[in-house]
């Protein structure tokens, strides 16, 4: 038992020294460890009790070993002190990442500031439900005034259809609205059937659970613009009562910004039970197509013939307002994929980590190198996204084919050349300190390629490595190789103080 305790103490002593040695500068570490191990041996021998009290001996040795941490910390502090001011960041990995982060922030800020870019992103955030059409006259001309009576909508809603699985109704009109003791103001109000937002697939903000279940009395949904301008963006306004056209109505929620893509620019929507809307009023009717209905669409239109009970026919044109265009995020993903596929065509995808000898940097350095590459790529992807959106939508007032192509090409080019730069940069970073190698020197003669090595040598300014890049890849020297410099090179890179 005592022997086991002694072994445990000895293992702990060695672990302490090993842990403390991690604080010691690498160049002093081996000698430091040698001295402390030697001294520990002597301490143990000197303290070994003739009476055989091994526990006391081990406690003394352990107390001795704990002092190694203070010694190691002092050496580490002295080393930092002698390094002088922090090394300049020029060419360092940190500087590179900072620049990329700055570009990303600028791209994001521009995208956030430009209303057109925000609009494109919001359209992506609140896409209309696929297969929703607006019914228009067969003439195909832009509908100026609504022509479908609510009674007709009610008949369509009540029946079962092969091509449709839902209808919604709305009509625009200006109405006097007063909230509390304030003077009434005139709002552009869309009187709608209660299922309007459900059919469109637009989520309502701050909506109450009771309202989401179904409505029994009229409720008002505010537009984001009105909510911001009139109510200062106060969420507490939801639930309060307003008078709309003389009817007391509860505000039930706020529609998302720029979620409305239909004719009219309502300040608010008045969702009413079907029974509350007069049968004779005319408005716009939306319909949602079934799979069979969507199959009948030609481009973004579908011709509809309605057979009435009195054997008359009515022709309508269904126009999809959610054209099946790719969203900015789909374009972005496609461009990134294209960039990745095209990358091997313009550069080698190797990271060039081959070493002249069997020496390899320690694994924390290797992990750091991979982390640096990952950080560059992770920063590059959002930069490509925001920069392409900025370029594509900075002049386009709305979503168009031109803006789609612009986004695709800009994003593709940034990804392609950005990935290429990330790899080239990685290949020229010292594996030890991640600084860019510098001072290129041409070595050898190109005319003697098959007799002797020729190429370019670059040097790490920190004195860690030399990079050999062959002028002409040969079977015996095909890729760049790193030569790790030992301590004998230190005098070349020592600062003026050391001289």
């Amino acid at each position, binding site marked *: 038992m005592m022997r086991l305790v002694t072994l445990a103490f000895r293992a702990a002593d060695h672990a302490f020294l090993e842990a403390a040695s991690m604080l010691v500068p690498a160049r002093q570490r081996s000698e430091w460890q*040698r*001295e*402390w*191990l*030697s*001294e520990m*041996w*002597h*301490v143990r*021998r*000197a303290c070994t009790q003739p009476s055989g009290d091994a526990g006391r001996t081990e406690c003394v040795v352990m*107390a*001795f*070993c*704990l*002092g*190694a*941490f*203070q*010694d190691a910390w*002092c*050496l580490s502090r*002295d080393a930092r002190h002698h390094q002088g001011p922090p090394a300049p960041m020029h060419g360092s990995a940190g500087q590179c990442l900072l620049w990329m982060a700055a570009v990303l922030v600028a791209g994001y800020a521009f995208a956030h500031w430009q209303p057109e870019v925000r609009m494109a992103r919001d359209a992506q955030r609140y896409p209309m439900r696929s297969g929703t059409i607006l019914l228009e006259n067969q003439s195909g001309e832009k509908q100026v005034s609504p022509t479908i009576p609510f009674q007709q909508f009610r008949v369509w809603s009540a029946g079962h259809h092969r091509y449709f699985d839902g209808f919604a109704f709305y009509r625009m009109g200006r109405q006097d609205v007063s909230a509390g003791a304030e003077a009434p103001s005139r709002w552009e109000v869309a009187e709608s059937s209660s299922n309007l937002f459900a059919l469109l697939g637009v989520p309502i903000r701050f909506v109450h659970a009771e309202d989401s279940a179904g409505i029994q009395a009229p409720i008002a949904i505010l537009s984001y613009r009105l909510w911001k301008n009139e109510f200062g963006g106060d969420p507490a306004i939801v639930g309060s009562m307003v008078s709309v056209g003389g009817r007391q109505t509860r505000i039930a929620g706020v529609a998302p910004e720029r979620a409305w893509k239909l004719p009219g620019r309502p300040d608010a929507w008045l969702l009413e039970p079907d029974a509350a809307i007069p049968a004779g009023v005319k408005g716009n009717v939306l319909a949602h197509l079934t799979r069979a209905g969507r199959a009948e669409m030609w481009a973004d239109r579908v011709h509809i013939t309605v057979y009435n009970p009195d054997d008359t026919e009515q022709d309508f044109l269904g126009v999809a307002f959610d054209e099946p265009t790719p969203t900015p995020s789909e374009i972005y993903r496609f461009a990134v994929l294209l960039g990745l596929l095209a990358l091997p065509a313009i550069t080698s995808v190797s990271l060039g980590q081959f070493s002249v000898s069997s020496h390899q940097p320690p694994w924390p350095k290797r992990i750091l190198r991979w982390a640096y590459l990952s950080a560059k790529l992770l920063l590059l992807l959002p930069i490509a996204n925001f920069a392409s959106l900025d370029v594509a939508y900075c002049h386009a007032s709305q979503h168009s084919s031109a803006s789609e192509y612009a986004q695709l090409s800009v994003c593709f080019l940034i990804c392609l050349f950005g990935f290429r730069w990330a790899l080239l940069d990685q290949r020229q970073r010292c594996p030890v300190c991640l600084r860019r190698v510098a001072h290129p020197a041409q070595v050898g003669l190109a005319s003697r390629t098959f007799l002797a090595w020729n190429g370019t040598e670059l040097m790490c300014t920190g004195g860690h490595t030399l990079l050999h890049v062959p002028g002409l890849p040969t079977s015996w020297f095909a890729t760049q190789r790193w030569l790790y410099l030992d301590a004998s090179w230190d005098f070349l890179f020592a600062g003026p103080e050391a001289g």
Partner: protein
Amino acid sequence: MAPSANSEPKLSHTAAMILQAIHAGYIYGFSVMEMTGLPSGTVYPAMRRLERDDLIRSHWEKQSIADAEQRPPRKYYRLTAAGKSTLDASRKRYPLLERLIPSEEAKSV
């Protein structure tokens, strides 16, 4: 930078004790600890600073000597010329230093 005769660095009492111990013949870390009663976390960093200031110098014992005695080699320390002059100045500053750690010459008298 080596201190000149006119500008010896003013040592702390601990550093002066260690210098005096080395001068007195306690020439490796553990013997300095035993002589001064200071813990390892004080003695070794202080000796590194003294060596950095060129007041003491270290060297490793020959491996053959250690092998003959079946023990690991030790790292020995000795005073430099600058260290001796600094110690002289410290003795004036700390008069009891020599009585705390008598040197070999003093012991033999």
